[in-house]
C-alpha cells in the first residue's frame, strides 16, 4: 500500500533512457546547474550581499544598491497589520493566532471530536472580543480599520467556513430528485463558476447596498465576505458533489433498510465520508481562497497586498516596489505552501488511520 510511489517514474525513465544516452544526461545536468548558478548569482547579490538592512528613509538606499530591506523593516507593522490601531495590534495578532490554531485543528479528521464545537465557540468569542474590543477595557476598533495579514486570514477562514456551510445544501440540491432544488443549485453553481471572482466582489460591494433595504446593508468587510462566501460555496459544492458520487450506492440502501431518515443519514453517514474523500480538493480550494482574497484590494479593502501598496505611498520612501512585492509574495507562498504541506500530512494520517482500522 505505502510503496505505490516508487515505480511511477519507471516507464518514463525507460523512455528518456532510450532518448538520452548517459553523456547527454550528464551534459544536461551540467547545463542546468550552470543556468541555475547564472540566475542565482544576481539574485543573491541583490537580495543579500548588496542589500541595505537598516535606515529610516529612502536616502539610506541609494540607487544602484541592492534590495532595500530597511524599507520593509520600517513599514513592517503597517504591511502586516494595516491600519489597526498601533498600540492594539497585539490584539489582532493574538486573535489571528487563535483563529489559525482552530483551523489547523479542524482540518485534521483526528480532531473531529465532540469538543471541537465548544472550542470553536470559545475561540470565535475571544476572536471577536479581541478584534472589536469595546469590552473588558479594550478600546473599540471598527472593522474598516482591520487590515493586513489578519484581514487576509479572516477573509480566507470565514469565506471558506461559510462557503462550506452553504455548499452542503447546494451539493445535495444538485443531486436531489426535486426539480426545483436541482435547478436552483445547477443555475447557481454554474453561474458563479462562470464569472470571475472580481466581478462577484464588485457586485457585492457595489450592488448589495443598492438591493438591500437601508439599515440592512453590511459594512465593507461584510459585503466582501458575502461575495467571497457565495463564490467559494459554488466551487465547494462542485467538489463535494464529486465526493457524494464516490460513495457507494449500498450505503444509501443500508441506511434506508435501517429506517434512517434523509437528514440523519446525510449528516451522520454520507457527508462525513464525502468530506473525507474530497479533503485534498478542499485544501486546494482553501489555498485558492487565500490567494483570491488579494483581489479585495480592487474594492478598497486593505488586506496584506493592500497594506503593502499603502506602505508604498509613503513619500519618504519612493519606489521600493520589488522589495514590497517580493516580501508579500514570500508571505503568501509560505502560507499556501504550509497549507498544502499540512493537507498532505493530514491525508497520510487519515490513510494510516483507515489502514489500522482495516487491520483490526
Amino acid at each position, binding site marked *: 500500500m505505502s510503496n505505490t510511489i516508487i*515505480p511511477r517514474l519507471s*516507464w518514463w525513465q525507460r523512455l*528518456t533512457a532510450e532518448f538520452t544516452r548517459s553523456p547527454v544526461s550528464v551534459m544536461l545536468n551540467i547545463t542546468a546547474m550552470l543556468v541555475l548558478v547564472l540566475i542565482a548569482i544576481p539574485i543573491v547579490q541583490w537580495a543579500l550581499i548588496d542589500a541595505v538592512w537598516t535606515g529610516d528613509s529612502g536616502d539610506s538606499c541609494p540607487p544602484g544598491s541592492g534590495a532595500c530591506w530597511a524599507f520593509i523593516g520600517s513599514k513592517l507593522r503597517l504591511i502586516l497589520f494595516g491600519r489597526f490601531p498601533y498600540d492594539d495590534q497585539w490584539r489582532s495578532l493574538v486573535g489571528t493566532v487563535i483563529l489559525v490554531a482552530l483551523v489547523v485543528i479542524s482540518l485534521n479528521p483526528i480532531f473531529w471530536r465532540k469538543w471541537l464545537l465548544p472550542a470553536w465557540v470559545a475561540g470565535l468569542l475571544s476572536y471577536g472580543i479581541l478584534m472589536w474590543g469595546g469590552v473588558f477595557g479594550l478600546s473599540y476598533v471598527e472593522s474598516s480599520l482591520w487590515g493586513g495579514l489578519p484581514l487576509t486570514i479572516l477573509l480566507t477562514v470565514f469565506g471558506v467556513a461559510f462557503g462550506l456551510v452553504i455548499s452542503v445544501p447546494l451539493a445535495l440540491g444538485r443531486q436531489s430528485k426535486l426539480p*426545483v432544488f436541482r435547478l436552483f443549485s445547477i443555475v447557481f453553481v454554474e453561474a458563479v463558476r462562470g*464569472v470571475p471572482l*472580481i*466581478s462577484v466582489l464588485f457586485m457585492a460591494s457595489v*450592488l448589495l447596498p443598492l438591493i438591500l433595504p437601508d439599515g440592512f446593508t453590511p459594512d465593507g468587510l461584510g459585503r466582501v465576505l458575502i461575495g467571497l462566501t457565495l463564490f467559494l460555496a459554488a466551487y465547494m459544492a462542485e467538489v463535494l458533489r464529486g465526493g457524494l458520487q464516490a460513495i457507494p450506492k449500498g450505503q444509501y440502501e443500508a441506511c434506508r433498510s435501517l429506517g434512517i431518515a434523509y437528514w440523519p443519514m446525510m449528516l451522520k453517514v454520507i457527508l462525513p465520508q464525502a468530506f473525507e474523500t474530497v479533503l485534498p480538493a478542499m485544501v486546494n480550494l482553501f489555498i485558492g481562497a487565500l490567494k483570491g482574497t488579494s483581489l479585495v*484590494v480592487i474594492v478598497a479593502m486593505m488586506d496584506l497586498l493592500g497594506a503593502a501598496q499603502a506602505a508604498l505611498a509613503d513619500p519618504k520612501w519612493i519606489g521600493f516596489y520589488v522589495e514590497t512585492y517580493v516580501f508579500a509574495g514570500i508571505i503568501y507562498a509560505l502560507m499556501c505552501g504550509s497549507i498544502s504541506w499540512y493537507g498532505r500530512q493530514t491525508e497520510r494520517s487519515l490513510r494510516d488511520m483507515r489502514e489500522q482500522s482495516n487491520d483490526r
Partner: protein
Amino acid sequence: MKSGPTYQDVPGGVRLARLFAQREFQSQALFVIIVVVLVWGAIQVASENLAESSGKSGFAFLWQKAAFELGESLIPYSAGDTYFMAFVVGVLNTLKVAALGIVLSTFVGLIIALGQLSKSVVIARLCRGYVEVVRNVPLLLQLLFWHTFLLRGLPTVRQALSPVEGVYFTNRGLYLLSPVAEPSFWVVMLALLGGIALAVGLRIWHRKTNAEFTLWPWGLSIAILPAIAAIYFAGAPISWDIPHLSGFNFKGGLTITPEFTAMLLGLSLYTGAFNAEIIRAGILGVPKGQVEAGFSLGLHPGQVMRKIVLPQALRIIIPPISNSYLNLTKESSLGVAIGYPEVVRVANITLAETSQSLECVSIIMLIYLILSLITSMILNLMNARTSREER
C-alpha cells in the same frame, strides 16, 4: 420520518390533490415563494434607491458617446464612439490576451512538466521549485510585479534598446516592424492561388495517369512560379512599416504595450504552473505496461510517444486543462488592476462615468458567462473527439 407516496405511485385523478399535500411539493413551493419574494424585494429596493436619486436605468446608455480613450484596441476606437463600442473593444482585448495566454501557458506547462520528469535531478528540482513558488503566490501580486518590472526594468523611449533594426524595447512597449500590404499584394496573392490550383491539378493528373516522374519538384515550381513572376512585374507585395521615434513616441509598426505584456507573462507563467501539474499527471497516468508493450513490438521511442503515450495522456489531460483555460480567461479580468483595457476595466470606467452600476455589473457577468459557455462547448467537442479515438 417517512416521505409520502411518490408522484408516480398515485392514480391520475387524485394526483393533483395528493401533490399539494406532499412534503416534497410543499418544500419546493415554499422555496420558490421565498426566492421570488426576495428577488422581488431586491428589485423594489433597488428601484426605490435609484428613484430616490432619480438615477437613470436601462441599457440605453450603451448608445451614448463614451468620453474616454482606451490604451489599445484591435478595432478603430476613440473617445466619442459609443459605450457599446468601448465594450466591444474590451471584449476583444480580453479574448486577445486569453487566446495568447492559453497557447503560451500550454507551452510553459509542457516544458515544466517534461522538466519535472527529466532524468536530470537538477532540472527536475528546478521545475518543481517553479511550480511550488508560482502556484502559491496570488496572480494579482504577480501581475503587479511584472507590470512594475517592465516599467522600471526597460529603458525609456529615448534610450530605447534596439537589438535589431526595427525592434525597440522601451518601457512604453515593444515596438516591432509590421508588414503593410502594397497595391501589388492582391495580384501576387492571386498568382499564388492560381499556382497552387495548377499544382493540385498536376497532382490529380499525376495520380490518374500514374506518370513516371517525381511529383514534388514540378508541383512546387508550378505553385510558386506565377507568384514570383507577379512579384517581378508588379513589385513587392508587402513593405515593412518600421517604427521610428517622432516627437514623444515611436510611430508606425506594431506596438505591444507593457500592460499587455505583463498580463500575458503573468497569466501564462501562473496558469503554466497549473498546466504543468496537469500534463505531468497525464503523462504519468499512462500505464507503463503500454510503453513496454510498444517497445517489445519493436516501435521506435518516437513512435511509442506518438502512437501510444500521447493519445492516452491527452485523454487524461484535456478535461482538467480545459478547466484551467477557463480559469485563465476569467482571471484575465485582473487586467483592471494594471490598466489593461479588458472588459472589466471598460465596465469600471463606464460605471464611474454613468454610475449605472446594476447594468455594468450585469454586462460583465453576462459576457463572462457567454465566454465560459463557448469555451466549454469548444472543449467538450475536443474532448468528445479525443475520447472517440479510444475504441
